[in-house]
């Protein structure tokens, strides 16, 4: 039989992307309910995704905003 933790690792990304079938979802949740190390790792992955999105969020420079507005085609 497949190592359940290894299988859980394979399921992590699809689980967090909400693309598992109901059956796969139930199997993943049953394993997570009883396996703390996997649960921690799933939670870490979730936090990581939020953190990466926050850290990578750069504001557009004001000068660029003006340059883009200046590219509009003038009305005749």
């Amino acid at each position, binding site marked *: 039989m497949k190592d359940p933790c290894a299988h859980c690792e394979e399921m992590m990304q699809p689980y967090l992307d909400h693309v598992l079938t109901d059956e796969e979802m139930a199997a993943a949740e049953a394993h997570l309910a009883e396996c703390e190390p996997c649960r*921690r790792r799933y939670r870490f992955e979730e*936090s990581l995704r939020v*953190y*990466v999105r926050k*850290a990578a969020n750069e504001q557009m420079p004001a000068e660029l905003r003006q340059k883009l507005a200046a590219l509009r*085609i003038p*009305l005749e």
Partner: protein
Amino acid sequence: MDAEPEEAQRLATEARDRVRFEEDALALSDQVYRVARHLANSREDADELMQETYARAFRSWRSFQPGTNMRAWLLRILTNLNIDRGRRQQRAPQMQPLEANDYFLYDRLAENGDGITDEDRVVERLSQDDIVTALSAVPHDFRDVVVLVDLGDFSYSDAAQILDIPVGTVMSRLHRGRRILKRELAESALEEAT
């Protein structure tokens, strides 16, 4: 029949549609930039890419179908321009070392965590610079998908349309790209720890 007033009216309607299109596109520029910044290799590249994208979008506004996803339409132009700029030639040489598995980063951070086991705190061991640098180290084919889906909130199918690749390819590149990102993060976290 007097054709001139009709023509004038047509031109006026067209001008109004165009101005509305330009306003809508500009209103999306912050969201487009958020993604463009990491599709490009640097802030300077992102700046140029945004300007080229908007210049092209304003010229070809008629090819946008009202009611469809304008942000995806703009990013399709942007990713095509990015590919045209020849950045594919800069692709990192294959093969990259295999990126362990999906638990690799957590296990490494937790090992060096001074006993910190709270998942949110473990994440905080990574700095903003670590993340931006690690993202830029992911090869483009994989990074494009990670950036569109994880930073840009595009669905798999939107990402597939923007990049003109099958949805299955989006999924496999996304999974591999996230693993490469975590490997890069693990490396920078370990460097800091030593």
